[in-house]
């Protein structure tokens, strides 16, 4: 006899543990059973993952700013006064 599917609410609540691979086998199968039956949660999971990817890409791809001379001077001055 199979257990009822977890709800979308439960799916959403513990989604991070699924993404981080922190679930045990039984719970992971429950998640996958839900995913197989719920296209909206498939879409949610995918966009959740991509949200993280976008934030990461933002940090990794930032152009490196130049170092203003004033900043160098200020650091050296405060070192002398420290």
């Amino acid at each position, binding site marked *: 006899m199979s257990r009822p599917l977890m*709800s*979308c*609410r*439960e799916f*959403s609540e513990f*989604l*991070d543990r699924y993404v981080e691979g922190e679930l045990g086998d039984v719970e992971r199968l429950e998640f996958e059973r839900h995913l197989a039956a719920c296209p*909206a*949660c498939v*879409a*949610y999971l*995918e*966009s*959740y993952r*991509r*949200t*993280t*990817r*976008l*934030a*990461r*890409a*933002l*940090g990794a*791809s*930032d152009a*490196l*700013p*130049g*170092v203003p001379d004033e*900043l*160098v001077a*200020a*650091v*050296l001055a*405060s*070192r002398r006064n*420290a």
Partner: protein
Amino acid sequence: MASRASGPAPEQDEALLLDRMRSGDEAAFAEFVRRHGGRLLAVARRMLRSEEDANDAVQDAFLSAFRALPEFAGDSRLSTWLHRIAVNACLMKLRTRRRKPEGPIDELLPTFHEDGHATNPAVAWREDAEAMLGRERTRSLVREAIDRLPEGHRTILVLRDVEELDTEETAKLLGLSTSAVKTRLHRARQALRTLLDPHFREDDR
């Protein structure tokens, strides 16, 4: 001064510069700031979103680094070590800065009917969302969305996802338990997803 080929400075060169700094060579400090200042400034701008605060934090970070220099054993990479120091300086700045009242995050979290079904079932995102990040408009869109998160959640998302610190480090820096960091990060990601959704959903084409 002999010109150096472009590309990252060789490790030997870095060790030599550190030695010169340890012996108090002023020019070496200036070179150190020029070499690493850009990366630190980028971190501070991402975390603080204010040019003035970012400059202050970078100055503080360099002073902390100079003080800690005798203890820098070279067991972690210099750039990683400096990055942590800069993050710390930014957190100090965030703590002293006038706080805007912490808004509720609930309205940015998914909502459900009583039977557990989502009230707004998710729709797939367009294929090229990540590629769109090459455009400045998209980058500022993501940045602005992150800035709309309540401060406490924003900080955790920036530390974990943008600066890529791990959960333990983030927890230590913020004085939180790892489970609190995980819970808040999950909510922050959900909230950020909600804010980005209208821009990236497939049916918006």
